[in-house]
């Protein structure tokens, strides 16, 4: 290769590399656009709301006076609804995912079920609210309660849990399965001793990400009839009217964080907007904490899983 050819080659490489550079800049801009929007929103909420966040804000019921109003009933409601959601969505979703991966025969019925599980994830959340209103509130008579809300959100995140379970199960090498079957295990023994334990990191991650979505849901919760103003907590176990039981709180009326926020933003007084910003700040913290927990759990559980 003579000097001229070498020159040409080098200038060609420089010209090609310009595209690398251009795309890199474009990528960073695209990333920044998303991140900055969130940072701007979050810092705006922080500026408006941080002054309101103190112990009283967390331990007070809503009030007509903005300065006295708090989010006690809202965050307790959100936490209790999430507990019900988790207890309903995890067993159902994991069972469905395990069935589809390990038990279901490969035929057109299974194919149709698989397609529709993915479709479910795309159904607008208000539709789940309408379904729950008809099914849980009226047909089953569960009332406009924490139980109804929790089950509704469980339905909403069920596809997320199923898909996460299946993805996690597919990550388990076939040779591990064969090793277990070769020991004489039944399918149930393979599932309970190997598949579910090894997939648990992925399943948990999916569950928590689904819950982080559910905790911010407003539409289906309003549809099933959450209250917007509530100045009492659900009854603690064994403290309600006789015969008081462990699960009385399941049937209590409630509100949740996003509804409390919505309520405050629709008030004319500016002070309530600061309350809404403060509540929003705490809601975002709750979801970020859940996502952080998902990352940490995944890290912890994967440490002991090596193929």
């Amino acid at each position, binding site marked *: 290769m003579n000097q001229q050819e070498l020159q040409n080659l080098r200038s060609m490489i420089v010209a090609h590399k310009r595209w690398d550079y251009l795309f890199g800049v474009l990528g960073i801009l695209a990333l920044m656009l998303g991140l900055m929007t969130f940072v701007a929103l979050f810092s705006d909420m922080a500026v408006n709301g941080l002054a309101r966040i103190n112990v009283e804000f967390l331990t007070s019921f809503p009030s007509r006076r903005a300065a006295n109003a708090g989010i006690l009933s809202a965050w307790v409601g959100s936490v209790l609804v999430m507990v019900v959601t988790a207890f309903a969505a995890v067993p159902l979703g994991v069972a469905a995912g395990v069935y589809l991966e390990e038990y279901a025969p490969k035929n057109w019925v299974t194919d149709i079920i698989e397609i529709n599980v993915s479709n479910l994830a795309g159904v607008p959340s208000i539709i789940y609210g309408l379904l729950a209103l008809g099914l849980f509130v009226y047909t089953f008579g569960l009332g406009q309660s924490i139980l109804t809300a929790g089950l509704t959100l469980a339905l909403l995140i069920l596809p997320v849990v199923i898909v996460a379970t299946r993805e996690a199960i597919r990550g388990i090498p076939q040779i591990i399965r064969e090793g277990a079957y*070769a020991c*004489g295990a039944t399918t149930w023994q393979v599932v309970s001793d190997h598949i579910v334990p090894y997939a648990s990191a992925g399943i948990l991650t999916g569950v928590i990400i689904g819950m982080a979505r559910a905790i911010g849901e407003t539409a289906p919760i309003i549809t099933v009839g959450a209250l917007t103003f509530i100045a009492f907590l659900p009854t603690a176990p064994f403290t309600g009217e006789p015969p008081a039981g462990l699960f009385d709180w399941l049937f209590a009326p409630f509100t949740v964080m996003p509804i409390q926020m919505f309520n405050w933003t629709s008030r004319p007084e500016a002070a309530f907007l600061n309350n809404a910003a403060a509540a929003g700040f705490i809601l975002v913290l709750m979801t970020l904490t859940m996502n952080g927990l998902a990352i940490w759990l995944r890290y912890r559980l994967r440490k002991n899983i090596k193929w």
Partner: protein
Amino acid sequence: MNSITNEAPLKAEARNLSFYYGNFQALKNINMPIYEKKVTSLIGPSGCGKSTYLRCFNRMHDLYPGNRYEGAIDFHPDHTDLLSKKVDPIEVRMRISMVFQKPNPFPKSIYENVAYGLRVRGESARSVIDDKVEAALRGAALWGEVKDRLKELGANLSGGQQQRLCIARALATDPELMLFDEPTSALDPIATASIEELISELKEKVTILIVTHNMQQAARISDYTAYMYIGEMVEFGVTDQIFIKPKRKETEDYITGRFG
């Protein structure tokens, strides 16, 4: 090393065994004896069906849809037909254990890996499991290296140790027949030598059927050798005879390296 007595009793016998992956016939009318407490190796070029054949013995093909057996594997001394639809594949796998090509320890402790076969059988007495785990690890020549770290993950062991762990797992349940599917193909020469030595020791207690891609390995460790080609059993015989005086031209071509 290959002391053969012609009156070695039969452990199993394949009779007119054919196997289909869907419409594709992978094994064609195989007839072959397997002698008790001997090592029988299956050799042949890639894709000849030797692994497919091996995996008939513990009904591994039942795990996947569309697979079909024809013929029989007569398992002695009770003459159970391993391939019969009436015989539960789990019963077959309880009697016949398997070691895979790539070491596949479960992501559990060394102890739990070896104990798994016992747990599947409902054994829950700690002392019984302790004893059998130790015996199996000794049998797999691994006890000395792991006896102080039984709680550690199996995956923390070296490749050769992992494979011996898998042998211990397969050994812990006192199988009547052990299947080895190219057990050393993922290992270095030193680990390979230790596994070969182990297999030669194991035949004191158990019948062994091994697939190997390595003819020298077959010659070193086995008493009987079968040469397979495109789903057919070309020649079966005493290992020395197969390697020194093969009866069939195809076998000779393969063994001398003119083919394959």
